């Protein structure tokens, strides 16, 4: 059975092993199937707002999720369905958030990729790019202050987000504090429609590592083996106390920025180049080559994934939407400090 629980544990030392690979592949497949389902629900008008897929980025993402273990911190970004599943997020959390179910972790208050469970180490992104890294720093800082060692925090980020001040401040902060941060940078060649050439001028974003005094790791983001190895090593280094690790993966977003976007701006040469390979196909081919999976296995895994996703969607579609009248309209945990306004207000005072 595909593992979507936290016990998966670190993978560095066994990253080329059969079991790890199959597990990783099946998580990638599940993520792809789930993403595809969101895309079709979007086309059917069943989803409010945008849908953001991780197509083409599953190998990198799954490697992050699998390299972490229980008690670690994970701040995924918009293309990390695979990493989320690998880290232990349930399919239901994803579907409930996309469909706005009141039973989901965000209770319909926030949607799509803006979800998480902070107390389980899964940080729910805010939209402002770069802003989650310092939050991961804070969790790691807190662990150290509490005397807890061995925690790793992984934050995912895109090429475009490296241009934010928040990215810079947070990576530098992690370096100064020597925090066990693994910053996983998916260089998918575009930020929305903006190509790398309009985003940065260094040869490779890996060139940034030295400037922060952190270790840098480059990896082919289309190659699951490489991702498992490199991310696994980076996580191990961070866990061993060697400070922040910057992983830069080369790959291509094999979808629009969101499902509303046909992405005709993507350079066709890139699509046919090595970064344009579909990591899922590459991984599948590798399993075939190693004879680790038969066609029957592959087909069975796919149908199982489809079935799990369909079940989850069917379940969630029967769940209650949030009820504005039952909603507690306060942003404060300190209820007694909530102010009343407008229609709730007592109205003109008569004396």
């Amino acid at each position, binding site marked *: 059975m595909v593992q979507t629980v936290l016990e998966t544990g670190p993978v560095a030392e066994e990253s080329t092993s059969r079991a790890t690979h199959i597990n990783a592949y099946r998580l990638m497949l599940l993520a792809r199937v789930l993403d595809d389902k969101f895309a079709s629900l979007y086309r059917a008008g069943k*989803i*409010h*707002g*945008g849908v953001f897929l991780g197509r083409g980025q599953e190998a990198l993402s799954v490697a992050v999720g699998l390299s972490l273990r229980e008690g670690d911190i994970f701040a995924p970004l918009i293309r990390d369905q695979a990493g989320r599943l690998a880290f232990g997020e349930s399919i239901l959390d994803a579907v409930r958030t996309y469909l*706005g179910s009141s039973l989901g972790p*965000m209770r*319909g*208050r*926030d*949607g*799509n990729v*803006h979800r998480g469970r902070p107390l389980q180490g899964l940080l729910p992104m*805010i*939209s*402002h*790019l770069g802003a989650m890294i310092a939050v991961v720093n804070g969790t790691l800082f807190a662990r150290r202050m509490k005397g807890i060692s061995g925690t790793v925090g992984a934050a995912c980020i895109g090429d*475009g*987000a490296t*241009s*934010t*001040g*928040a990215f810079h401040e947070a990576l530098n902060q992690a370096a100064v504090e020597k925090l066990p941060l693994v910053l996983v940078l998916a260089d998918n060649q575009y*930020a*929305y*429609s*903006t190509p790398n050439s*309009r*985003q*940065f001028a260094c040869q490779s974003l890996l060139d940034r590592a030295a400037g922060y005094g952190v270790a840098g790791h480059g990896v082919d983001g289309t190659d699951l083996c490489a991702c498992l190895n490199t991310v696994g090593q980076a996580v191990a280094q961070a866990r061993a106390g060697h400070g922040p690790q910057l992983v830069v993966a080369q790959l291509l977003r094999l979808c629009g920025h969101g499902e509303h976007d046909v992405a005709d*701006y993507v350079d066709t040469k890139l699509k046919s180049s090595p970064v344009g390979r579909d990591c899922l196909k590459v991984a599948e081919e590798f399993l075939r080559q190693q004879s680790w999976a038969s066609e029957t296995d592959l087909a069975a895994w796919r149908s199982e994934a489809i079935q799990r996703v369909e079940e989850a969607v069917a379940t969630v579609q029967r769940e209650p*939407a*949030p*009820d*504005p*009248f039952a*909603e507690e*309209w*306060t*942003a404060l945990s300190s209820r007694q400090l*909530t*102010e009343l*306004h*407008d*229609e709730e207000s007592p*109205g*003109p005072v008569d004396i």
Partner: protein
Amino acid sequence: MSVTYLEAIRAAQARALAEDPRVFIYGQDVGAFGGAFKATKNLANEFPGRVLDAPISEDAIAGLAVGAAIEGLRPIIEMQFADFSTVAFNQIVNQAATLYWRTQVPCPITVRLPCGATSGSGPFHSQTMETIYAHYPGLIVMTPATVEDAYSMLLEAVAIDDPVVFCEHKLLYYHLKADALPTEALPVGKARLAREGRDMTIVTYSAMVHEALAAADELKPEGWEIEVVDLRTVKPLDTDTVMASVARTGRLLCVGESWPWGGVSAEVIARVATEGFDLLDAPPQRLNAKDTPVPYHPNLWAAHRPTARSVAAAARKILRQ
């Protein structure tokens, strides 16, 4: 031919680029792609080298605009969503807004903010920020509610020698249509009487103008004639027009989509209460979004913001007094 609010914004930018060589546009994905909302569609093509993609660096985008303005250019910068202007906040309120006062050198930049809640957008793609910017000296804050104003006010924003925060409402982008682009406009800083009435004044702006007008429709069969004032710019705020309307109706409801604490509606009520107290026949009231982040789910979203229905309900309370 009909033209949408969004097309008007695009047309205004095209015209500004065509008529004034000092104008350029800078922002994420505004170039060949035409912007996240297509507000700059084809402009990079039509005006080569003058519509440029920026890195995801809102602070530096705004900072660059100020530098270019010092050199006499008229930058229009687009924030992909108003919400993201929080990371350009310092350059807008401390660099752009203070330049003229400190140095006598004007800072003619236009900051386009796609604002406001739309269903399914959630806490970080829905914010209106007029309250925040209007608080700062040195900024003009425009909040057009109509296709005509979107067009003419954006042209004015570019022409004005001071930094203008131009709050476009995303909910109006595609739905709101006019027959044609306007050929004349009210002066900057003048509010508009969107509807005349004798029983009560609703003061509002941006997308809420349409909720207020719908509320006025709803109240008409009940015998009430509601006057609706569209502020157009919230800073400067046209107190005279507001006051004149309240003088006619004696009753005031202010409606804003921003959060309740210290919003436009507080400012309007404070002005009327301090300067036009005796004009009021009943306590003024206000209606705002709820004091939580903007929710994602349509059910919650619809309850979070003022709607024609809640505006009408609030109006009835006042009318009954």
